[in-house]
């Protein structure tokens, strides 16, 4: 019985991690209607920045985490202003080709600068190991992931649903012309949203290094997971990707534990079943309208 809870706990942590990694993509893809396959590259950037700060410059892990967010966001905004904004009106195919090219460039660049070996971020001792909670093994690092990602999810939901910025963003997405007619600075809203999405990816990258490992192929290796989360969750809100991440995280961990022979396929099985049932994802666009 306690094992069941340990598995559940690991699954939730894994799911939360997937969510932070993928929710930036849900925002660009769903809210801005832009296919950004280079999303993983921003995650990797955050991871490497955190690793360099902690391992080489001796920064504390918890100071380096926000910096991973900020620098990924800064790189995001620079690229958005120079490259991405020219592609908003282009076809999805152009966007895919452009962003996948960007991904390959980031892989090669990081490989050149940082080398191809997998690196780890030196964690503070307080985050290592497990403690026992009524017989359930709780990993300290995974607990931290759940706390950080949980808070982030709530904040994100509030920003989108309750703030002025959230309503501006939704208006800018639904009808950019009418929105700019009403005095909303649409390019600015988009740039800010894009940067925020990149920042989240950067934070996710920094958090995931410990569990998923960090090497130059990160953006390619995990692209599939980001896409599954967004596909299963639907891209019209962030509740969808959130529930999808949890479902997939728990499903993946439980599948690997209980049926290790089937392990890697569980996540795909879940995706297929959900997509047959709801082709637009759990909270798909057509379902919402």
């Amino acid at each position: 019985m306690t094992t069941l809870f340990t598995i559940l706990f690991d699954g939730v942590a894994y799911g939360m991690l997937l969510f932070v990694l993928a929710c930036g993509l849900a925002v660009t893809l769903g809210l801005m209607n832009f296919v950004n396959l280079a999303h993983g590259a921003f995650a990797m950037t955050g991871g490497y920045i955190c690793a360099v700060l902690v391992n080489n410059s001796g920064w504390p892990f918890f100071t380096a985490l926000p910096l991973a967010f900020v620098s990924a966001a800064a790189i995001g905004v620079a690229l958005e202003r120079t490259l991405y904004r020219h592609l908003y009106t282009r076809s999805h195919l152009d966007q895919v080709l452009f962003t996948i090219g960007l991904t390959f460039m980031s892989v090669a660049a990081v490989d050149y600068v940082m080398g191809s070996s997998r690196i780890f971020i030196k964690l503070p001792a307080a985050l290592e190991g497990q403690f026992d909670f009524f017989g359930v093994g709780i990993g300290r690092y995974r607990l931290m992931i759940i706390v950080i990602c949980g808070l982030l999810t709530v904040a994100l939901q509030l920003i989108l649903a309750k703030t002025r910025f959230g309503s501006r963003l939704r208006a800018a997405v639904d009808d950019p012309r009418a929105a700019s007619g009403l005095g909303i600075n649409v390019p600015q809203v988009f740039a800010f949203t894009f940067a925020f999405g990149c920042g989240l990816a950067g934070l996710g990258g920094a958090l995931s290094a410990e569990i998923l490992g960090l090497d130059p192929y990160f953006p390619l290796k995990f692209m599939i997971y980001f896409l599954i989360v967004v596909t299963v969750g639907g891209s019209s809100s962030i509740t969808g990707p959130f529930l999808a991440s949890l479902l997939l995280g728990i499903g993946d961990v439980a599948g690997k534990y209980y049926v290790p022979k089937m392990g890697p396929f569980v996540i795909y099985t879940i995706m297929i079943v959900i997509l047959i049932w709801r082709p637009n994802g759990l909270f798909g666009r057509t379902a919402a309208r």
Partner: protein
Amino acid sequence: MLAFAPAHAQETVKIGLILPMTGGQASTGKQIDNAVKLYMQQNGDTVAGKKIEVILKDDAAVPDNTKRLAQELIVNDKVSFIAGFGVTPAALAAAPLATQAKVPEIVMAAGTSIITERSPYIVRTSFTLAQSSTIIGDWAAKNGIKKVATLTSDYAPGNDALNFFKQNFTAGGGEIVEEVKVPLQNPDFAPFLQRMKDSKPDAVFVFVPAGQGGNFMKQYAERGLDKSGIKVIGPGDVMDDDLLNGMGDAALGTVTAHLYSAAHPSAANKEFVAAYKKAFGSRPGFMAVGGYDGIRLIYEALKKTGGKTDGDALIEAMKGMKWESPRGPISIDPETRDIVQNIYIRKVEKVDGELYNVEFATFEAVKDSGKTKK
């Protein structure tokens, strides 16, 4: 890299070096490339009156690329050797070309038993997984380890490691209580490790491709398996010198069987490690040694043939060759063209603030049991 032969082509012997320089196996490629460069710096680029030219090609460990590159090297560049080969499928893809063109194929990394049987022109200077896995199986059975849970990557080398370990461990009276094969591209070991923990073994036998070892050890410690007294044993790939320091103290006490450790206490190795560190700023791992011995084999074979590059003569020259490698004494088995070498049992310890695999027992002149059984 792509330079064509100079005007006096008859004076040059070309070696086509096919390695994964990009992709998940890139660290293998870089180590071997470094080692080859180092050897040529130390020993000059002229052998038996011929100039040696190495043409490096990147196959990213994709067998289709390997095959195409090997063909280009043999047909266009007229190389006298093809060498390198980071993974088993790559080495196998080039095998028919080696046979057809009668060009020696020097395998410097890939480790499944079958490789040298695929062409009479293949010679290996790295290792086979059978060599280390059978030894650790015997060792575990004789050293008070009764119950073992296994965790291996689900691909050919992983299955080789598992089967050879199982065979020797159970023959020695041991019992396998849990057997888990993890997918090759596996991000999170948590659920598999939980399964290992629940099966309460004396030790966990692990084989994952170089690169994932660090992830595995970190999560092993995170889950408290180190504190519950479950040891980690395995072939030495998991504890490659490349990765060891990144794993942190979780790796301390891990016992593995392998052909090489940067801490191998011989004069030849001390010199090799120092030269490698000076040239490339990092520690050499077992892949570097495979490359270093591979290029040495080519040099020595050319010396024996007086610089003639006839494939059959070169292979004859290589058979039975013996020398002192940084890893210890090695030779090329004249029957299988595979490497015969010492396998050491090592334990991870801290030496001068760094983690090293410290050798404490030696099994001498181990042949590949994957073939001797047949």
